[in-house]
């Protein structure tokens, strides 16, 4: 016993407030209640931090998958050309701009697909030379009609089957307005996006021009090295485009979605952060109770000459240690839990309903920093109340029994 106790003497001494704070935190043998309270407060903080990391990681995972899904079907840059512009001239001008890797003329409009007695409203995309990247996993590269594999599967269509594509713009004939209909053979399929709201089909530009006639608005679908460079390149395009052209980046095309995702994440953060707020309150009561039970000792330290700042720092260190312990445990629990859940795909989803078959977890360093930073600032601030009370105690008040 003697050797153990003597061995506790600090050879390289810690600052006095930290020394006392550590002893108060480790006082399990002599005052288990205080340790229990401190551990409860630390546990609350850990729970809050872990819950925040897990919630935001799940949200980030979902959002990342959703963004990937949506962006794979969105042009990096889309230019809407004014009526009367020669799209080929514009395409060549754009192709010469630095950073542009591909530029393709396209038209876009709405219509109907008819086959086997069924009909479906669709978005019709007329493409130039090659099937654009907006139609991933195409079964063929030959120019022709491409349908989403989801619709083909449901309708029981096969390659080579003839379907009808109907334009909403009629042709005026002596017999009155007649719908424009193109009968086309299915050339291939592409992977339907499960996150998509509307069915799409792709057909050659020549066919699309017949369907939309002169009212067709020509567009340029532009590809760059990556999403970030696309934002940069977009700024250089108006200089080479005819007046009246509208340039939209992938960000503009999905502005509402991205805003909704950001809002969702912010609201989730606020809601789950309430756990940390409760843990902060628990820390205030914990430190106040410790101060009440250690009052004569705090008074004695004052009587021995410890200045008010040292007495305050004891409780700031104590709060800091509880907060640090809680935040670190929460960090390990949250990041470790997210990794495990993602790695082993432990939370599965019905793939027929969702575009994913499991809940993905993506831990972002920025989120973790925000969570830990906000938690530490808020909960550490809670320590100031007890610390201030300790510093303002007159030794005689503390020593009075």
């Amino acid at each position, binding site marked *: 016993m003697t050797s153990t106790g003597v061995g506790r*003497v600090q050879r390289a001494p810690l600052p006095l407030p930290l020394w006392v704070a550590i002893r108060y935190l480790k006082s399990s043998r*002599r005052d288990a209640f205080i340790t229990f309270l401190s551990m409860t407060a630390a546990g609350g903080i850990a729970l809050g931090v872990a819950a925040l990391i897990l919630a935001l990681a799940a949200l980030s995972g979902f959002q990342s998958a959703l963004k990937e899904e949506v962006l794979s079907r969105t042009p990096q840059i889309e230019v809407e050309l004014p009526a009367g512009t020669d799209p080929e001239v514009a395409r060549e001008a754009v192709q010469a701009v630095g950073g542009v890797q591909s530029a393709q003329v396209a038209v876009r409009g709405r219509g109907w697909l008819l086959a086997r007695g069924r009909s479906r409203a669709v978005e019709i995309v007329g493409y130039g030379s090659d099937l654009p990247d907006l139609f991933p996993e195409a079964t063929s590269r030959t120019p022709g009609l491409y349908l989403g594999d989801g619709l083909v599967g449901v309708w029981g269509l096969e390659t080579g089957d003839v379907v009808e594509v109907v334009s909403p713009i009629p042709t005026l004939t002596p017999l009155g307005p007649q719908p424009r209909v193109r009968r086309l053979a299915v050339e291939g399929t592409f992977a339907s996006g499960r996150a998509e709201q509307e069915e799409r089909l792709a057909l050659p530009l020549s066919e699309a021009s017949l369907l939309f006639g002169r009212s067709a608005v020509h567009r340029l679908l532009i590809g760059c090295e990556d999403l970030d460079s696309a934002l940069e390149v977009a700024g250089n395009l108006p200089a080479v485009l005819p007046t009246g052209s509208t340039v939209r980046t992938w960000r503009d095309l999905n502005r509402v979605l991205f805003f909704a995702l950001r809002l969702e994440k912010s609201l989730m953060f606020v809601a789950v952060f309430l756990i940390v707020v409760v843990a902060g309150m628990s820390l205030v009561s914990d430190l106040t109770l410790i101060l009440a039970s250690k009052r004569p000792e705090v008074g004695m330290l004052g009587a*021995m*000459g410890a200045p008010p700042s040292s007495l305050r720092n004891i409780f700031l260190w104590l709060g800091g240690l509880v907060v640090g312990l809680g935040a670190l445990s929460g960090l390990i629990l949250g990041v470790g839990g997210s990794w495990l859940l993602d790695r082993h795909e432990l939370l599965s989803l019905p793939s027929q309903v969702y575009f994913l078959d499991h809940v993905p977890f993506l831990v972002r360093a920025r989120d973790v920093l925000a969570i830990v930073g906000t938690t530490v600032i808020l909960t550490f601030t809670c320590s100031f109340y007890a610390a201030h009370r300790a510093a303002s105690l007159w030794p005689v008040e503390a020593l009075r029994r």
Partner: protein
Amino acid sequence: MSVSIRARGVRKAYQDGERLVQVLDGVDLEVQAGELVAIVGPSGCGKSTLLHLLGALDIPDAGTVEIGGQSLAELGPRRLAAFRNRTIGFVFQFQELLGDFSALENVMLPGRIAGKRSAWVEKRARALLEEVGLQDRLGHFPNQLSGGERQRVALCRALFMEPPLLLADEPTGNLDPESGAQVFDLMLDLQARHGTTALVVTHNPELAKRCGRLLALEGGRLHAERR
């Protein structure tokens, strides 16, 4: 090393519900450097209050206290704390040892507060505890020590900084007669050897008579007491 104490017209009152209790009502006190003075009086007469005021643990409603010529009223909280650390050693009835620190660590605390060198602090604490016969109890925690042992640790802690003034509030009040006598003997011995000015508040008339001078606190004032 020792200091003189000089108190003039010290007054202190407490609010007890609606009633204002005037505990000290113009206390005058003069203690010479190196003197050992006992203060006696019935419970609740204000002995501890007077000791707290003389020890810079509290401030009087009126009057002045000077320790070694230094007026306590002139010192702010921070300088007052440093003054207590250097100048005054306290021994209380309930020892007020820190429960999470060993006997050795408790004795080291005043040195740590003063920011003294760690090796020196430990060496001195060991020497003091050996001086009072606790060399085998250095690593024991207060709840593992007897009342007499705890009070001896408290005495070592009070004398750690070699303060010129020792203030003891009922140092034997919580001990059995035998332990009380032993602790009191030890305190007188250490006081004599260190040449410290000492003020002892006690209920025990036998122990009080062993001090150089005896004062009684009655009606909020001090009176010289016959032996």
